[in-house]
């Protein structure tokens, strides 16, 4: 089932996403998630995997055996950023 959106306008970010995924932004917005998932699985040749990328993203109070403070999460992120050239 697809949804109509007359007010849909394409931004520069939309165009970049469309280019990198090889699909039009209308398709990406209008296609149900299960269909997008099936496309990715077919293209990658395997089932979708669920991973945890904490502390890059997310919050410390979910599925953790201890709380990770905001400062610790920010420090981990900063550490990764430091690997990029100044």
């Amino acid at each position: 089932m697809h949804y109509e959106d007359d007010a849909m306008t394409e931004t520069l970010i939309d165009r970049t996403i469309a280019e990198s995924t090889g699909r039009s932004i209308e398709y990406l917005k209008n296609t149900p998630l299960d269909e997008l998932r099936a496309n990715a699985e077919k293209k990658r040749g395997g089932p979708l995997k669920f991973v945890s990328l904490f502390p890059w993203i997310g919050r410390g109070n979910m599925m953790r055996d201890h709380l990770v403070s905001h400062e610790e999460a920010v420090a981990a992120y900063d550490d990764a950023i430091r690997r990029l050239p100044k």
Partner: protein
Amino acid sequence: MTTQSEDSQSSDEYPQSFASLVGLYYDKYKPLYSRIQTFNEMPVELVFEVAAAWDHLSRHWRFNESESDCIDKAARHIKRAVFDAYKLLLKQTVDEYEELNRINTSLIDNGHFDKQLRLLMSEIRDGSVQARTSEGDTAGADGWNKAFTLWGNVYQKMEKFHKDFYINPNIEWARRKTSMFSWKLRGEGFVIGFTTSLLATYLVYLCCS
């Protein structure tokens, strides 16, 4: 709740109705989610944010909580999910950059490739730091949009890095050259080591005899 026809609010403004919250989801979150989906590895943290947003929304009907409060809380979760998606793409960029660092890319285009690469990565680094520090700013329409705009600019550069540098056709050539150079160095090291030890043995033999 208002419907889409009753509400013409753009997704660039802070959502104050269900329709504009849906606009935020479709215009900002779903395209990025689709991009992340192409990895075929879905971070649970991204899914949790949308689940949390849905939970807040449902409370308006289930527990008669204020519509504006529920929309406000849900919007914050969707916003967080959008920024998380940008951070995932940044992580991919950092990983790809580190992979390029293991190759002697100075061989490409007389060093111009390296120079441009470092310049772009420096812009990505500065841009992402600036975007991240603006994430908490929700004061007014400008505050709401600031981090979206900054992350959007960083995203353009990350895709430019992937397209122009990471999958640059010259990378494979440089990879082969780096590999050949590395074997040549090892060969030279072996020959020098072997010759030196031969000479040392001979000198010891001369001294002792």
